[in-house]
């Protein structure tokens, strides 16, 4: 029996190729997603990992929590603490660590490394064990900097070059004194690191005379724990904390793991979808394969093979196909994973660099999908094959399509769909995050339900298309009838496309609606022409505001200055603004009172006002970091949004309480509105600083929407896979239909249907099936997009459903193209069919 099965696999090369290809695609889809997922998550993980080789015990400042009217502060790690640490029992040496943000421009003035990964630090003394130099010598003084080897290589810098860098505003042009290597994960992931001598770093990062951390190395023979207890005795417990290097490493690992879980879950959902689609196409293919072989299997039964032997032969065949396809699919999947990352990088998405990760889990999953799912998928049709009566071998006709009633199937499908719709609808009435899980569940139920119901849906939906087909004469009529001839098969074929399009349509609808909501928010909240901020979201230095105010064509500027305060025993972040112009810069709906910021008058958003029971005219007292009380009056309550919210008070009132002003953004209004010339002017006024972003409203909403664009691009990538899978499925179905109907096609040719019409008939059938899948998918996708929007809408007041009709049209067109493409080969085959062989009486 094994030999028979093996012969079978080899005897039909085209069929074998098709099956292997289908299984391979399924496996590739799964393994590609897993490789991509693992690679990305490991890269992210590495990017936030730092080596702790040089650290036996880290000394950090103990944060003083807010209490009463006192704003929480962090004490300084002074030189004295460093000296004490270095002299503690068992300490070999101590390094003071200073870090901050440092942007490095490449030779064209563009920021290296995307912004959020531009780090700066200090090079400790003449030889810093953390950073081995590959060339040059340690940076000294304000005019020297050392940069990491990767960055130097990427930008083509070498020792002695002048480089443009920026820390919090002004552009600096130091000389590169050294190039070093580091185990910093951020650098390995594609970020940059610039090092200054300690005094310069302290000055640049606004930490004169203090450190962010003190790393103490133990003498040989002293354990980390012993050193820690020695340091604990030597240092003032009130202001510092000590942590062993081992604990730091453990904490970091834990922190990274929890930080990654969201991303991992998201990517796992994709893997799950991949698995579903993959399983599905494999099952589909095998069902068809066995159906094609009815006669052959019946012959086996007729010559005495038992049912079990027939089933086993089908399973052995599945095993062989699954193994071959599983291995090749895994290889293809690895390629896809690598390609997907390259694609995302190409699309401008910032994906950290790192090695391609092929985990054992991926290999196991790929082979499991390939072999187990293939065998499982072959099990049912195999059983069915075993039940083929031996007499079927004698009949000249191919086994008729099962006309078994669809009643049970439809009932189950209807139940699933109804439950799915109900759960999704119920979820839309819930609040934001509470609704997520039920919505996901409902979506899965509904998709499964519709999937089960597709045979039922195929008749009315395809009937609806018949007026269009009528234009194609007999070919159109026959195509329509052929496409509803075997509803199960049509449904199975259309489903692959349906799932892909559901996903993509849902995401597109959601992303489109979100984009519009964000645009609206940006447009409605801000009337300034530009918003200036740091590329990494850090604070700008106060002189950015001054420089902008002095620039040509600028009529007004206002900083958005962040400060912590204690109000009624709660920590509130307040925003210092230029009170005289903030009214022009923003366009906020005033709910109560008069919008006026100046002196003790402040404006408060509705949420904050509600939580403090304030209304226009309410008085309150804020305590700032200097510990002083500031009486304030609520002038107006405005409607807050994602961009502007909280308490806004005049800069002149806030500044005296602050040691170092932290401008998160600066709003700029220009005489002639936003234009590229005006933007250039502003950038020039800031010294073409690579670290500072000048954004108009469009840029702003784009950057907020970037994350959705990123996800959307990923989904489009997956769609490409789904489309390939769908094309294969359609080809499979058509090839089989053509094969089964060869007698009919021969007869049609004999009585006068020409080749063109035969081709047209097959193509139209393919088109009808594809469009059927497309319409179902788009319909479901819009529904999911709407439902997810209802959830989001609870968090975003400007959200409303936007159905991008043009895109939907495009997707439908895509479905049509899939249909036409898939029909190319089967249609050719049908037209070339040997008429005589087809009609020859047996």
């Amino acid at each position, binding site marked *: 029996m094994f030999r028979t099965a093996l012969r079978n696999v080899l005897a039909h090369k085209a069929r074998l190729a098709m099956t292997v290809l289908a299984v391979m695609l399924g496996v590739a889809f799964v393994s590609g997603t897993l490789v991509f997922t693992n690679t990305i998550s490991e890269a992210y993980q590495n990017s936030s990992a730092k080596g702790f080789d040089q650290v036996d015990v880290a000394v950090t400042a103990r944060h003083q929590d807010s209490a009463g009217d006192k704003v929480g502060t962090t004490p300084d790690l002074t030189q004295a603490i460093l000296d004490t640490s270095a002299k503690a029992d068992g300490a070999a040496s101590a390094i003071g660590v200073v870090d901050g943000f440092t942007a490095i421009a490449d030779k064209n003035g563009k920021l290296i490394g995307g912004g959020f990964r531009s780090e700066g630090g200090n090079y400790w003394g003449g030889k810093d064990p953390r950073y081995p130099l590959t060339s040059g010598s340690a940076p000294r003084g304000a005019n020297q900097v050392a940069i990491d080897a990767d960055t130097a290589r990427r930008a083509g810098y070498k020792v002695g070059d002048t480089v443009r860098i920026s820390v919090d505003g002004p552009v600096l042009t130091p000389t590169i004194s050294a190039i070093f290597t580091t185990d910093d994960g951020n650098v390995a992931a594609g970020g940059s690191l610039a090092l200054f001598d300690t005094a310069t770093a302290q000055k640049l990062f606004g930490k004169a005379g203090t450190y962010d951390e003190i790393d103490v190395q133990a003498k040989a023979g002293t354990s980390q724990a012993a050193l820690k207890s020695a340091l604990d005795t030597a240092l003032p417990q009130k202001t510092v904390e000590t942590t062993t290097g081992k604990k730091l490493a453990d904490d970091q690992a834990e922190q990274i793991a929890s930080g990654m879980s969201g991303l991992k879950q998201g990517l796992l959902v994709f893997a799950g979808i991949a698995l579903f689609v993959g399983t599905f196409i494999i099952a589909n293919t095998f069902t068809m394969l066995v159906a094609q072989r009815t006669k052959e299997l019946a012959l086996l039964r007729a010559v005495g093979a038992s049912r079990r032997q027939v089933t086993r032969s089908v399973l052995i065949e599945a095993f062989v196909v699954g193994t071959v396809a599983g291995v090749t699919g895994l290889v293809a999947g690895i390629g896809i994973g690598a390609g997907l990352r390259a694609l995302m990088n190409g699309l401008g998405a910032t994906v950290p660099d790192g090695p391609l990760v092929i985990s054992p889990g991926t290999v196991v999953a790929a082979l499991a999908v390939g072999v187990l799912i293939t065998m499982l998928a072959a099990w049912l049709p195999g059983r069915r094959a075993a039940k083929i009566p031996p007499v079927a071998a004698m009949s000249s006709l191919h086994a008729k399509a099962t006309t078994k009633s669809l009643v049970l199937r439809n009932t189950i499908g209807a139940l699933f769909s109804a439950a799915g719709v109900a759960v999704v609808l119920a979820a839309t009435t819930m609040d934001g995050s509470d609704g997520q899980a039920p919505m996901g569940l409902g979506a899965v139920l509904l998709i499964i339900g519709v999937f089960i119901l597709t045979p039922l849906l195929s008749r009315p939906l395809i009937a609806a298309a018949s007026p269009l087909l009528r234009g194609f004469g007999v070919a159109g009529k*026959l195509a329509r009838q052929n496409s509803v001839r075997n509803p199960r098969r049509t449904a199975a074929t259309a489903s692959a496309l349906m799932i892909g399009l559901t996903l993509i349509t849902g995401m597109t609808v959601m992303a489109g609606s979100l984009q519009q909501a964000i645009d609206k928010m940006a447009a409605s909240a801000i009337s300034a022409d530009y918003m200036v901020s740091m590329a990494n979201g850090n604070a700008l230095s106060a002189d950015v505001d001054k420089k902008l105010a002095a620039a040509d064509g600028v009529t007004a500027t206002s900083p958005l200055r962040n400060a912590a305060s204690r109000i009624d025993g709660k920590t509130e972040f307040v925003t210092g603004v230029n009170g005289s112009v903030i009214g022009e810069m923003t366009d906020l709906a005033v709910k109560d009172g008069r919008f006026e910021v100046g002196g003790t008058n402040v404006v408060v958003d509705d949420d904050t006002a509600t939580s403090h029971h304030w209304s226009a005219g309410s008085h309150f007292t804020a305590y700032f970091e200097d510990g002083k009380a500031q009486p304030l009056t609520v002038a107006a309550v405005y409607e807050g949004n994602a961009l502007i919210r909280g308490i806004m008070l005049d800069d002149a009132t806030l500044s005296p309480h602050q040691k170092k002003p932290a401008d998160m953004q600066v709003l700029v209004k220009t005489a002639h509105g936003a234009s590229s010339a005006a933007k250039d002017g502003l950038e020039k006024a800031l010294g073409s600083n690579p670290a500072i972003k000048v954004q108009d409203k469009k840029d702003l909403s784009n950057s907020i929407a970037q994350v959705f664009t990123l996800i959307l691009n990923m989904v489009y990538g997956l769609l490409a896979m789904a489309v390939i899978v769908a094309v294969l499925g359609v080809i499979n179905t058509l090839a089989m239909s053509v094969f089964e109907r060869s007698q009919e096609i021969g007869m049609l040719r004999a009585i006068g249907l020409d*080749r063109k019409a035969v081709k047209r008939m097959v193509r139209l059938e393919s088109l009808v099936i594809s469009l059927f899948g497309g319409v179902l998918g788009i319909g479901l996708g819009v529904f999911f997009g709407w439902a997810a929007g209802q959830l989001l809408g609870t968090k975003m007041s400007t959200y409303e459903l936007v159905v991008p009709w043009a895109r939907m049209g495009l997707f439908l067109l895509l479905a049509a193209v899939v249909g036409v493409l898939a029909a190319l080969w089967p249609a050719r085959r049908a037209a070339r069919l040997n008429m005589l062989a087809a*009609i020859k009486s047996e």
Partner: protein
Amino acid sequence: MTTTPVAGRTTAVAARATELSKIYGQGETQVVALDRVSVEFRQAEFTAIMGPSGSGKSTLMHCVAGLDTFSSGSVRIGDTELGSLKDKQLTKLRRDKIGFIFQAFNLLPTLTALENITLPMDIAGRKPDQKWLDTVIEMVGLSGRLSHRPSQLSGGQQQRVAVARALASRPDIIFGDEPTGNLDSRSGAEVLGFLRNSVRELGQTVVMVTHDPVAAAYADRVIFLADGRIVDEVLDPTADSVLDLMKQFDAKGRTS
């Protein structure tokens, strides 16, 4: 041996093959399926082609019906020479001038009986002649079953639909490839009766391949093929006379 013209029956010729040869393969493996066959099928005549398996009877029919290509010679349907026609023109010729009846009925399962009958005209984009259609349907006795699908009809009924389909478009000539091969004797007799009636009453030309002497007896003329050549011909045959001839050939085949 070639055919001898039959005295007293010289009417117009519906189809004619002249020096028709069909050769498969080359050199050593060459197989001659038809060896310079010349034959005429006259209008309003019912011809049966007989011969043992491999005699070339089906090949002859396929070549004359424009279903298969031939190696040399000529085939004419009416005034049209088939040898010079491209696939597209051949298809059109089959559609407009020829009707077919197959052994396996070959109806489209998705179409009703009526739709199957009018299929050749649907393909041509022509409206059927309603009066003629009614006559044909009446003749084959399908009036009550026009909306049935093939799966709801018996074999005999299905073949009657096929006969009606062949007749409905009023082709110049109808070719039947073992039309009773899949039928029981009663249904077969019915179908053959319809074919003979269509010749006698409607003036249709019918050519049928068969190996059943009883079926051949319905024809006006029987042609015998052996080894790709016409070896004999019987006019107004009876089942017995055909059977006798067959026995003769069988004996010859064994002795030669």
